């Protein structure tokens, strides 16, 4: 791993973000709107007397954590799209940059995005709805770390598919993560799913995280079992998906697709 090369690729994205209005919107505008809408829904539920323990924390906390997952995934997948749109993949992969260094730089990019978006959302939630997410305390840390890992897994999966199938698959950069939303049980407990779907959901790391978050809110204790399951599953899927990315990259080189991605 060459830190200079990772920094080089990272600087390419930072140059881009500092002058791109559209990319800044991605960090400020959409998360803010999400928060406003869900904030009002939460207030409505409270006013309507819906009995839900910690309604604000349930929805706003879940929304902020969902955005951690979403932005972590986008940090990886959209970074690849940026290279595809600017027909820069040839420049990158004809340089000494390795596949591993490429992946690490997109993962660092995703951490920067997550940090920016999550910080802003926490501030907005506190200012507009008096919701202090940091009250969850240290339990928040393993939740966030695991959601970032899950985001990377979905991001690398998405990138592999886009690399293999080209521009026609680019919509997955925004859509793929939502495929996992129903079984991640972001806004409702896992027990509301039909039993056959519950079995699948238990294999999805974010489901353990959101279940864990609700357990902290309801019982006030850190659900260690959920954290262990989420971490174990994440590490397993991360190793598998990175191996698959390397395989797809080699297939694309064999089929001559790497030089045609984006055409």
């Amino acid at each position, binding site marked *: 791993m060459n830190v200079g*090369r990772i920094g*080089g690729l990272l600087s*390419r994205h930072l140059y881009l973000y500092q002058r791109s209005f559209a990319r800044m919107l991605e960090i400020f505008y959409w998360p803010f709107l999400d928060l406003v809408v869900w904030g009002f829904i939460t207030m409505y539920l409270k006013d309507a007397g819906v009995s839900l323990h910690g309604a604000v924390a349930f929805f706003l906390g879940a929304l902020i954590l969902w955005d951690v997952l979403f932005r972590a995934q986008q940090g990886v997948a959209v970074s690849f799209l940026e290279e595809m749109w600017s027909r820069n993949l040839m420049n990158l992969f004809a340089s*000494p940059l390795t596949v591993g260094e490429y992946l690490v730089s997109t993962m660092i990019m995703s951490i920067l995005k997550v940090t920016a978006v999550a910080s802003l959302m926490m501030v907005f939630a506190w200012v507009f709805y008096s919701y202090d997410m940091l009250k969850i305390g240290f339990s928040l840390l393993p939740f966030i770390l695991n959601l970032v890992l899950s985001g990377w897994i979905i991001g690398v999966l998405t990138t592999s598919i886009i690399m293999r199938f080209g521009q026609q698959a680019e919509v997955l950069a925004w859509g793929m993560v939502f495929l996992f939303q129903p079984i991640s049980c972001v806004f409702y407990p896992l027990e509301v799913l039909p039993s056959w779907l519950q079995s699948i959901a238990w294999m999805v790391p974010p489901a353990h995280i959101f279940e864990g978050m609700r357990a902290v809110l309801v019982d006030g204790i850190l659900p260690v079992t959920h954290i262990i399951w989420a971490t174990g599953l994440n590490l397993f899927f991360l190793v598998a998906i990175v191996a698959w990315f390397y395989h797809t990259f080699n297939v694309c080189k064999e089929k*001559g697709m790497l030089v045609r991605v984006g055409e």
Partner: protein
Amino acid sequence: MSNPIVQVRNLTKRFGDFTAVDNISFDIHKGEILGLLGPNGAGKTTTIHMLLGLITPSSGTIHMFGLDLAQHRETILQQVNFSSTYISMPFSLTVEENLKVVARLYSVKNMQQQVDSIIEKLEMEDIRTRLTRKLSSGQMSRLTLAKALMTEPKVLFLDEPTASLDPDIVDKIKAFLKEYQRNAGLSILYTSHNMREMEEMSNRIIFLQHGQIVAEGTADQIVQRYAQRDLEEVFLKLAREPKAQ
């Protein structure tokens, strides 16, 4: 003759039933400009992509600096670069920013000094802070050439570097390249459809047709061998020959 810097042996690339490059072998020596000539679809670009490690060969070997590209990709690509009219660079970055990113990817020492130097050499001072999307095709060619030369490569692959450029810019780029190549002792693989340019630039020419090498030598040797008036006539004769079954 010295050991070749680039040594290609029995290189073949098949895409399904189609053979893009068919068992070609050639060497490039230090300080040599080797012209790769051939009609569209002859396998020139596929060959360059294999030399850059962007396409995996079906069979055959590529050695550069005595090392196998398949096993020493990083070490080799550190000393190699390429430029083409058909490549691009991130549009939303300025010329200088793009060059800095490339410098970091190639671990260029004294980055700012190198960037300033190549900008001066290629007379790009007026477009230094311009966004890449606002460059003309001539300026874009200069930028891709700058990114290739800034890393001080020992081997340079130039895939039609002057295609679709006006004669004034072509002349400037050729003059710059020749001088740079002479001073740096650079080895270049050069593709072009312009026969005069090919004669002018190359020490030796390889003619590719249907993925195979059908002629090799200096421009004069090839013209004499095929008893034609110039390289353009040789090109037309060879390019119109049907593929042997």
